[in-house]
Each structure stands twice: as C-alpha cells, then as structure tokens.
C-alpha cells in the first residue's frame, strides 16, 4: 500500500473538483474494494477523496420510481421496505452478494464501480492488461474457470463481479452522474463496458465524474422475478453464473421478459434479442430453452470455463421458470427451487 493524502469532500462539486485536479486521486466511500486493491498495490492513489459524508444517502420517490443515492449502503437498500415491496429482485440480488459486514459498509456507487475478481488482476506478480495496459493477459490459457464467456477480447476475459448490477441491468435503471461538464444520465446497460482494446476501463464514466444516484423506473416486476446465483459455495462467493429474470405475464403468455446474467462478462449481460423472442410466447420450458439457446449461441469458452456455457443455459431456463411460477430463489434457503 502506497502513501496517500486524504481529503474529505464537503460537497459534490468539491469532490468533482478534487478528482478533476488529480487524475490519480480516488473517491472512497465504504472502501470495501478500494482498500483491498491498495493493499495489493493494484491501486496506488495519490489521494483519497472521502465522499462518505456527502448528502447522497437517501432513497427517494421519483417519477413513480425510486432514486437511490450513491452512498446508500447495500444493506440499507436491500432491506428498504419500498425495495422489498416494489423491487424485490434488487433486494434479493443484494443479499446474494458479499457478507452482512460488507453489505453494511459497501455503498451503491461503490458496488457499481467495484473491480473484477480476476486472480491475475489482484496479483501484481503477474501481468494483467487491466492493471497494467499492454502487459498481457495470463488468464487466457491460465486459471480461468471463473472468467467470462461473453464479450471477451484478446486482451481481457475478466467479469464484473456485482450481483446488484445484474438486477439493475434487468430493471433498466439509470445512473445519474456529475462531472466537470455537469450532470448526465447513463442507461444502466451503457454504464459498464466490454474490455475491447482498453480493458483498464470498466465503465463509461468520464474522468472526474461521480455517481450521484441510481434511478429505478416505475416497473419493478415484483410479481414474477428471481435472482438465481450459482457459485462454488453457498454464501460469500462470486457468481459462476447468475440470472436476474423478470416476467410480465398475461395469463400464460409473456407480455415482457427481462433477463440479465452475472459472472459471465465484463458487464451485466443482457440479450434483448432473447427478450424479444420471449415476448408473446407461452411461459413454458420450451420458450425458455429457446431464449437460453439464443443467448448462449454467442458464448466463447476459455480453457477451463467451458462448463459455464451449459450452466448459463440451464440457469436461464431455471431462472425463468422460477420467475414464471412466482417462486423466486430464496437467499436464505440455499436449496434451489
């Protein structure tokens, strides 16, 4: 861990100015990821700008939806009554992640901006294009059973580790940010990016921009949804594959389907073609399988993670079944329904 300066931002504009003035400064809120990264010398910020006391910690009603301040802790968000009632998919996804202690400390904005869990990224004894552009990607052909099957590049096969973001992607949330050029909103699916040629960039945030809130639209799919997370142990492990599924049914017919996958790509993976395919179809295993087949058609295996393709296919089907039946995956009973 390097030596760094510490400043506390009193206002959002102060925070933005502090980061704009020093590109190697970093915002810190809960610190549940950044501090680890600093201990591993992956991040070496010259300065930490403490944003934890900015007035961004409220959950507010807005346009029929909810505005979630960037500093709302994951635990607060997961147990918020409005979230439980109207966006249970989001609450369940949050509770599927990390541990109680981490959820108490981790913020909404921090969850968005957490870095990958690729082994090589965390190990400065190895090359990594995300950590050190141009050094190479030993995960390709290396230890990669947890790595991506969608949207990889020749430079990076890392995944985004968040559970919360998978639900937010399915719910069509919006990320509101402020930067030196003012405020703007980013559609959730555009917030995280694929690695391409510059895997060091995880998001489309511009330099100096800070997340103000995550805005949820009115529709929460509270009737038919599930967050199904498959992992190597039943708690405190990142997803091998996770599925956020939400359905709107008219009788047995699918009026609308939302489907996002976690643990399989550099960003929450949505396939709108598959969602469109489900529209108007009966809510049956056959329909779900057709959608799953369509999604995994573009999957690319690495040397050790080929199983994820079949796992993703089956998880999509199961997730849609759970959503259709109105029996969401319980995050306390680890038996999969």
């Amino acid at each position, binding site marked *: *861990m390097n030596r760094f300066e510490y400043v506390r931002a009193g206002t959002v504009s102060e925070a933005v100015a502090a980061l704009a003035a020093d590109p190697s400064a970093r915002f810190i809120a809960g610190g549940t990821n950044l501090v680890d990264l600093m201990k591993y010398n992956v991040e070496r910020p010259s300065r930490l700008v403490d944003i934890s006391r900015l007035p961004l910690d409220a959950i507010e009603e807005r346009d029929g939806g909810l505005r979630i301040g960037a500093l709302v802790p994951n635990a607060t968000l997961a147990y918020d009554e409005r979230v439980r009632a109207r966006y249970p998919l989001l609450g369940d996804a949050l509770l599927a992640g990390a541990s109680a202690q981490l959820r108490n400390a981790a913020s909404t904005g921090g969850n968005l901006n957490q870095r990958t869990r690729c082994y090589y990224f965390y190990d400065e004894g190895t090359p990594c294009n995300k950590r050190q552009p141009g050094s190479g990607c030993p995960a390709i*052909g290396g230890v990669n059973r947890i790595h991506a099957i969608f949207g990889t590049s020749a430079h990076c096969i890392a995944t985004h580790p968040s559970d919360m973001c998978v639900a937010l992607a399915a719910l069509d949330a919006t990320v509101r940010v402020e930067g030196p050029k003012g405020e703007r909103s980013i559609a959730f699916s555009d917030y995280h990016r694929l690695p391409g040629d510059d895997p060091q960039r995880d998001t489309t945030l511009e330099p100096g921009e800070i997340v103000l809130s995550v805005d949820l639209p009115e529709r929460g799919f509270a009737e038919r949804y599930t967050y199904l997370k498959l992992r190597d*142990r*039943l708690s405190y492990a990142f997803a091998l594959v996770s599925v956020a599924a939400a359905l709107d049914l008219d009788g047995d017919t699918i009026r609308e389907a939302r489907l996002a996958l976690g643990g399989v790509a550099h960003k929450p993976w949505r396939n709108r073609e598959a969602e469109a395919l489900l529209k108007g179809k009966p809510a049956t295993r056959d329909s779900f399988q057709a959608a799953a087949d369509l999604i995994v058609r573009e999957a690319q295996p690495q040397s050790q993670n080929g*199983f994820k393709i079949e796992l993703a296919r*089956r998880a999509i089907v199961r997730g849609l079944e759970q959503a259709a039946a109105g029996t969401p995956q319980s995050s306390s009973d680890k038996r999969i329904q």
Partner: protein
Amino acid sequence: MTATFSPTGRDTYVGTARSRVDGPAKVTGLAKYAGEFAAPDLAHGYVVSSRIAKGRILSIDTSDAEKVPGVVKVLTHENRPRTAFLAMNYRDMVAPPGSPFRALYDDKIHFSGQPVALVVAEDFETARFAASLVRVTYEAETPATEIAELKDLAYDPPKKRSGIKPPPEPWGDADAAFDGAPVKVREDYRLAIEHHNPMEPHASTVVREGDGKYTVYDKTQGVANSHGYLTAVFGLNKADVRVVNPYIGGGFGSGLRPQYQLFLAMLAARDLDRSVRVVLTRDQMWTFTHRPDALQTVSLGAGPDGALQALKHDVIQETSRYEDYQETIPNWSGVLYRCDNVAMSYRLAQTDMATPGDMRAPGAVTGVFAIETAMDELAQATGQDPIALRLRNYAEADATAGGKPFGSKELKEALRQGAERFGWARRNPEPRSTREGRELVGWGMACGIWEAMMQQSSVHAALTPDGRLELGNATGDLGTGTYTILTQIGADALGLRMEDVTVKLGDTRLAEAPVAGGSWTAASSGTAAMRACRDIAEQAFRLARGLDESPLANVEFDRVVLEGGRIAVADDPARSMALTDVLRKAGVERLEATGKAAPDKDHAKQFESYTHSAIFAEVKVDEELGQVRVTRIVSAIAAGKILNTKTARSQILGGIVMGIGSALEEESMLDHRLGRFMNHNLGEYHVPVNADIHDIEVIFVDEEDKANPLGVKGLGEIGIVGTAAAIANAVFHATGKRVRHLPITVDKILG
C-alpha cells in the same frame, strides 16, 4: 493402571462436557498471539515475495525503498548476515530428508512466492509501502508443477522420513490375483492441492532482551522445534533463547515446522540488534506448505461376493526439489482390509514448488479417499451393501505390521451405531432412486482411520498452600482443548475444582513436550500430567501422615482418596485433612513434581494402535445446475476414552467440516505456466461457510484401550479422514456419477 483419574474411582470432570478454560480469554481478545507481542524497540519486517517460480535473481534494487523515511534496512541475499553453513543445521525436528529452504540464501528461486527481501521499518505500514518499491529482476526458467507430466521421473525416496511408514513389502501376488479376479475395479483418484489457512497468519516477534538473549513469540505448534531451529541456525546458546506461544489461531500442521518468517525475524533482530516482528500476509500463506498433490491408482480384485482377492494402491506424490517430503498414503488400504494379495507403492516426483507438509491427517485424507471410494465402486460392481462389503473384508489384525492384532478396534460397533443413527437400513441401493422435488438424494458411507500415537512428554505440577495447582509443559494448544483436558485431569487427580487448576503451555521454560500434532497430545501430555499429579498426591499424603496427630496415621497411600480439596481415608472419610492444611501445617511452600510419559514399548510390541470412524453422509444434488448440498453427516468415532465430550465433539465437527471443504470446495489452483497458485486469498480459496453446513452428529463408541494409562487415542485427525469419500459416495448414489478428482465442483456434476 486405573480407569479413572480420581483415586475415588469416579471422575468429576474427566469424561464430561466442559467448556474451554481458555475460551473467555480468546473471545474477549485477552489471549495474545505471536504477532501481537510488542517491545519498545520493535521494528516491523515485511516480506517481498518472488513472482517467478524458477530461475535466479539478476538484481535487486532497494534504493527507493531505503529512501522511505522510517525504513531501517532492506535485507536480501546480497547483504544478509551469515548464518549456519551446513544444511543439517536447518533441519528441524520434523523435517523430511533433504536440505531445507533457507530464505535470502542466494540468488536461486525455488518456488513462486519465495521470500527475496525483507524490508524492516519503524512501523508496519512503512515496511509494507517500502516493500512495494523494491525492484527485482529475474532470469526465469520454465517451472514444472503438474505431476501428471512428471510421472516418468518418479522415484522411491532413498531416505525415509522419520516416523513415516513406507509401504510394506508386498505379500501374495497382487498382479496375478487381480488379473484372475472375477470382479475388478481399477481407477485413478486425486485430491486438489489444499493449503492449511489457519485464521491466524504465520508471525514471529523476536524480542531482544539484552545480553544476547531473546524471547521469541512464534506461531508454532511446538516451541521446542522453533527453539532448536533458532539455536542451530544462529549459533545461539540454548539458555539464551526462549520461545513462547501460548495460543495458536489454528495450525492444521502448518505450524509444525519453523517457517521462514521466524528465520527472517531473528535474522533482522540479530543484524539490527533490536526487536523485530514479521507477519505474513494472507497471500503469503500460499508460499510455504500445502497438502501435496498425489496421483493414486487403486486396483481391487474380488470374488462375486465382494471378498477381496487382490489389492493394489499405487501413489506418486509431489515434493520439492530440495526435500523428500513423505507422508503415509497407500498403507491405510492394507490396514483397513484383509486381503491375501497386496502390493502398495509410494513414489515421489519433484516439482518447482515449496516443500509440501503435514496437513490434518496427512496421508490418510489422501489415501483413505482413494480406497474408500474404490470400495464403494466395488460394492456397486458386486451388488453388495457398502457396509456388508466392509465387514466381509474386515481386518482383525494389521497385515502391514506382520499380522499384529489391534490393541482395540471398535470399527464394527462404529459401523453399527452410525448406520442405525443414520437410518442406513432404509437406503435404496439403486443410484438415482431417491428424489425430493428437484433434488436427487444420495446416501454414502466410508470408514476413516488414523494412527493412535504417543510421544515422549513431560508435565510439571506445583501445588501451593492456597490449594491451587499449576500444570505446565511446552506443548501447544491448537485450539483443540489441551488447556481444558489438562485442567480436568489435574482437578480429578487431586480432588480439586477446575477453577483451582491453572495450565500453562507453549513456553520452552516449561517442562519438555513434543510439538502438538498427530493427535498425540492428549495421550502423551495427559499421561504425563496424571503422573505428575499422582506424584504430588503421594507427596501430600506423606506430609499429612507425618504430621502430629495426623488423621492419616498408619494408613497406606492406596487407602486414601483425594476429593473436595481433602485427602481422606477411603473407607473412613471422617479421617481427612484439607490439602491446604497439610501444606500449611507441614510448612511447605509448594509441592512440585514432573511427570513423564513415553510410548509403552511392551504394548507396541504386541499391538497396533489406530482410531477408526464410520461416516455416513446425505447429499442433495440439483443435477441440472450442478449444486451439491451436504445435508446430513453422522460420524461414529472409535477413539478410546473421551476426556471431554464437548471439546472432543468440537474437534470431530471441525474435522468433518474440513472434510466437507475437501470434498466440495478446497482447491489451490495452479497456473502451471507460472508455477504459481492463483487463488491465494480466502475470497477465492473456498472453505465451507455456515450456509454449507447442516446437521452433523458425532457418536463416540465405547472403546477400551491399553496403549497408555488413560486409554486415550487422540481426536485431532480422525474427524476429517474418510469424510470426503463418504460425500463422494453419496454423490454417486444420488446421481450415478462417480467423481474421483476432488473437489466435486459444479463443472464435475455437469460434465
């Protein structure tokens, strides 16, 4: 010989459920661990680890690190002080044959993560920061870490490791018998490499006491071993070094040998003439020892009734290039089952990794997984019930020891009680026959075995006129309950309350005792404690009898009992004296005694000593999604006398949970191109969490054993042995899928 510790013939404390006497200190944070001791002149060392696995260091540039204010010195192979020259000086008590690794010795890199520099600074944070500024360039060679590609280079270790049984000479003609057997099972088995990962990372604090004397707080399972190592390596007088480690935050074998942080802390302390602490990081816990990889082939030939006609168990195990680490892997097959044609082999293959080491039930976890899975395969192949098959081939004597009988072996009773408790009789033998909702349900079983060992040990006892007893020796309490059982023994032996007994452990100033490991501590130090207390009792009796108008006048020792803090005539309890009065009236400030224990050679000539277990596992498998849940375990243990039913149960529970981890989760993943473990943190190296653990029931089967006066056999290892096989067998029963390469992860269920 006596069945109880108390001369009254009934123990108050031994054999009952008692909470750990060290529990309050641990949960309130009062218990101090090796990395928590301090000194006014304490400096902090931070290790710089090699990023390559093989090759040599071309250069180390420490200039930027040294410029950081607060940095005291950066030690490397280029500026290290001289230590002992001969390799033998680095060989600790439990070292395997070979030349032990020496940190900062020269420019050679033997394994990934090897320490290449130690940055010493005034505080930990400065040392850690400066360590990130040390620039090392290497000339890398291609490492070899996959033993499957090194099979052709395997060899018989020319020197055997002390205390480790090589495979016995074959008997009968296993190959011919196998070829001719009506039913054959021949399969390969493998476990993942596992790392011990105790909660407490390895740490050493060397406190300079002046006059060339040192007090060393070391995370070790045996202070005597660290002491011997330090004096030999640094040429120090025995009396000038005191090694202390009162508490261990988990060891599992990783603290048996002195590890490199101890060497580095003393090296820096000597060089700088000040106190130094070195604490390893969690990722550095992947850089010194591990449960070795092993390729195993088990070949079973049997008649249609399942009676074994041939048994072969062949093992190639990984070791480092500088030491021939050995553990007992195949032999267990020949101990567990009776067969006329047996051949077992055990060879080593060298890799570019750090020397592997003992990890909870070393060898048995590995070998028993293979034989107990193979036996399940034979049960399936012959249509036999897995328990019936084991009873058909039940060994009444140890064929690997020339047919010597077992001192005691209540495995049959363990099988009976375990099966009854589990409800085994209701099992439908057909795989895939039971379903609950989306899940397939499977029931599997296996046997476990571990050696019941004893080592030379001693315990010092002192009784003072306030009625308090102090017991002490140098062994460690791994968190298993040694403090507690010695307290119970002392209280019962002298008729005191447990509150009146204090136990001190883990200090080279205390009575000599072996490292804590191998499940031998209760038998060895327990026996020594009992003898020390008997000695005290006899001294107190003689004092009492010699007093004027003694109520014990003309009574012999064998007629007295000690109970309720009093010494009394057994058949005339009115004739008694308080122990406190005896010492006060006799004007004695303290009674002292040292009790010694050693293996009973006569018994060992006649009998072999093992603990056994019968493990029953229920799994529920969501086959479509590859999810396995272990919903129930019953483990019936035959391990002699149980001193404390609570700490004993906890030990077995811990072993079972570790076995569940071994079966389903634990795996140190190597990048063979880099020769480096990649998931070196507890987020990505998975051990079971609460959500993975459901019902576990432990049964202790009555077993009388005479290998030591306590009738104790030890419990540290037996809980884990066989557990993974029971789970893998249950997975087969649930799904019809046989997984022979642990851990049983999602991909192996799907594939």
